[in-house]
C-alpha cells in the first residue's frame, strides 16, 4: 500500500480529516526551507505538498508567486526539490510527500527521468496544475510505472462529463479546488464545498482533499468535518513571508513561527470529528 493510501486509512481509523500543508521548495533559501520541511510532520502535518518553483505560476495568487520567485532567486530548481525530499526521507519514512508544480520544468527535466528520480527520492504523489488529463498521456505511464500517484484537480467548473475522465487517471486522492480562482484568493462558502464534496463522492471512492482559499483554523475545521483532508498553502506561506527581513532573509524565529502556525491548524483539526 502506498504512503498516501496508508495515511488515509489511518485518518479514517482515527475518524478525522488530515492536514496537508504546502511550501515552495527553497523559499526563502534551501537551508531554511529544509528546516521547515523536516519539522512539519512533528508540527502535525499529515501530508506535505512541496511546490516546485516556476517563473510563471499562472494558477497562483500573489503570495505563492512571491514565494516561487524567492525560491528561484535562492537557486531552487527541480533537482533541489528532489534533494530536499531525499534529505527529509532519511528521518521520515511515513509522511506522504506530494510534489506540486507546472509542467514545463518537469518536461524540460525529462518526464521519465523525473518520475524515476522522484520515486527514488521518496515522492509519493504528483500534481501538475497546467496538465489536464487530455494532455497528460506522456506523464501518466511513467508515473504509473514508478507507482507515483498522479493527482488531478476537480473544480467548481468541472462538469459531470469531465469528472469521469479526471477520475479515470487519478490515484491516491482527488483534489477539489474549492474556488474558481488562484491560490490564496477569497474563500468558498462551506455549504458550496459540502455540496461539491457530496457530489464528488457519488463518482468516486477515492479520498477527497479540499484546497485553495482555506486560510483560518475555522475554515480548516469546517472542511475537516466533510472532506478527508484540508490543504493549506498561501496562509502558511504568508506566515513565512511575515518572518522575512526587507531583503528576504529569514528572521531567527521564522521556522518556529511557521511550524507553530501549522501546529495550531493541526491541533484544531485533530479535535474535529469527521462527519462524513
Amino acid at each position, binding site marked *: 500500500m502506498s504512503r498516501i493510501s496508508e495515511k488515509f486509512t489511518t485518518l479514517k481509523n482515527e475518524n478525522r480529516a488530515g492536514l496537508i500543508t504546502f511550501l515552495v521548495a527553497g523559499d526563502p533559501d534551501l537551508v531554511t526551507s529544509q528546516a521547515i520541511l523536516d519539522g512539519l510532520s512533528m508540527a502535525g502535518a499529515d501530508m506535505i505538498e512541496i511546490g516546485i518553483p516556476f517563473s510563471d505560476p499562472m494558477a497562483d495568487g500573489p503570495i505563492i508567486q512571491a514565494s516561487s520567485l524567492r525560491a528561484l532567486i535562492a537557486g531552487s530548481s527541480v533537482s533541489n526539490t528532489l534533494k530536499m525530499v531525499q534529505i527529509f526521507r532519511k528521518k521520515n519514512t511515513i509522511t506522504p510527500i506530494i510534489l506540486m508544480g507546472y509542467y514545463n520544468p518537469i518536461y524540460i527535466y525529462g518526464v521519465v527521468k523525473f518520475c524515476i528520480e522522484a520515486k527514488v527520492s521518496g515522492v509519493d504523489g504528483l500534481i501538475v496544475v497546467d496538465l489536464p488529463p487530455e494532455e497528460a498521456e506522456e506523464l501518466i505511464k511513467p508515473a504509473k510505472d514508478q507507482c507515483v500517484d498522479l493527482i488531478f484537480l476537480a*473544480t467548481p467548473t468541472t462538469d459531470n462529463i469531465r469528472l469521469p475522465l479526471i477520475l479515470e487517471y487519478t490515484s491516491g486522492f482527488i483534489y477539489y479546488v474549492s474556488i474558481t480562482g488562484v491560490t490564496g484568493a477569497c474563500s468558498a462558502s462551506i455549504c458550496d464545498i459540502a455540496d461539491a464534496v457530496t457530489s464528488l463522492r457519488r463518482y468516486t471512492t477515492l479520498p477527497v482533499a479540499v484546497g485553495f482559499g482555506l486560510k483560518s483554523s475555522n475554515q480548516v475545521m469546517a472542511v475537516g468535518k466533510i472532506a478527508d483532508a484540508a490543504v493549506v498553502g498561501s496562509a502558511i506561506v504568508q506566515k513565512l513571508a511575515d518572518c522575512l527581513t526587507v531583503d528576504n532573509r529569514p528572521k531567527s524565529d521564522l521556522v518556529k513561527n511557521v511550524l507553530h502556525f501549522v501546529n495550531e491548524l493541526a491541533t484544531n483539526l485533530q479535535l474535529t470529528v469527521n462527519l462524513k
Partner: protein
Amino acid sequence: MQSVNITFTNPDNRGHFGIYGGRYVSETLMPLILSVERAYRLAKSDPMFINELSYYLNNYVGRPSPLYFAKNLTRAFGGAKIYLKREDLNHTGAHKINNCIGQILLAKRMGKQQIIAETGAGQHGVATATVCALFGLKCLIFMGATDIERQKPNVYRMKLLGAEVRAVTSGGATLKDAMNEAMRYWVTNVNDVYYMIGTVAGPHPFPTMVRDFQSIIGKETRMQIMIAEGRLPNYLIACIGGGSNAIGLFHTFLNDKDVHMVGVEAAGRGLQTNKHASSLNGGMPGVLHGNRTYLLQTTDGQINEAYSISAGLDYPGIGPEHAWLHDIGRVNYVSVTDDQALDAFQQTISLEGIIPALESAHAISYAKVISRDLSLDHLIVISLSGRGDKDVPTVANLLADGYS
C-alpha cells in the same frame, strides 16, 4: 521529419500541430475553453456570423487592405519587385483588429459581459478596446508596467476608448507577465469573462481561431497579386512575435510549394546576447500559456524574459503552428536585429512616405537581404502589419541617444 507533401489545414481535434499546441491549462479553465471551441465551431459555419464578420471587416475595418507596389523600395533594394500588404491602413492601424472583430462577435454570441486581453505594444489592446466600445462591452486590458511606460500614446487611446488598463508589475512587467495576469483574472471570473487572446498562441482553439480570422490577409493578397501580376509571389515575408500577422499571410499559400515563406523574429541586440526575442532560433520546446511551443528558457525550464526594440515582438514564445512549420521546414525562420529594423524603418519612411511599425520593419529589413540576390521577375510580398506612429517617440529617443 514528415513528408513535404502535407496538406496544411487544421490541427488534430485537440489542437495539436505535430507535438505543439494543445491545451495546457488548469482544470478550472478547461470546461470554459471547450465551450469557446464549441461556440467557434458553430459560428464559423453559420452564414449569419460570416455575413456579420464580413460586414464589419469591409465597412468598419476598411478591408480589403491595399497590396501596394513599393517602387522606391524595389529600386533601393535592387532586386525583386517589392509589394507591401498594407495592414497598417486598417482601422486602429494594424492587423490586430481583424481578429478582434471576429472574437467579439463570438463573445457576443456566447453572451459574455466583459472582455479581457493582454497587450504588449498596445496594438491588440487598442483593437480590443475599440471593438468593446463598438459593441458596448466592458473592457479590461492587462499590460506590463514596462510596456505602459514605453507605449504611452496607446495606453491613453485605450483609456479614451473606455477600457481599464491594469498595470502588471510581476516578472519583467512585459507581455508574458500581462498574459499570466490575464489568465489569473480569467480563472477567477470564469463565467462572465471572455479572454480575447491577441495572437496565434494560447490553448486550443485560440491558435487556430486567431489564424482563421487573420487569414483574410493572405486570401486578399492572393487575389490582389493575381490581378497585379497574374501569378503567385515567390516570397512572403512577415515579422513574428506570437506570429498572427505571419500566419495570416502564409496560411492560404502553405500548399503552394513554389511560394517561399520567411518569418522574421526579433534578434534584439543579437542572438549571441541574451537580449533577443527569437524563440525558434534561440529557444527550445516547452509548455507555457496553454500550449507547447518553442520558448526562451533556462536549462531548468524557467522562462526567460524576451527583449526587442519593438514591444510587439517582445514575447518569449511563438504560436504552435509556427513551431511545427519550422520543424517540418515549410517556413524559413530568420531573425533581424534592432539596428537592422531601425534602418529599414527609416528607409521605408524616407523612400515610400510610410511609417511602418518597428515590428513590420523587421520584415522589411529581411526583404532587403534576400532581394539582392533576386531580379525583377521575382515577387516579394511583405506584410506591413502595422503603422509606426506609436513608435515615433521610441525612435526619437533612440536616435537622440546616438543608437545604431
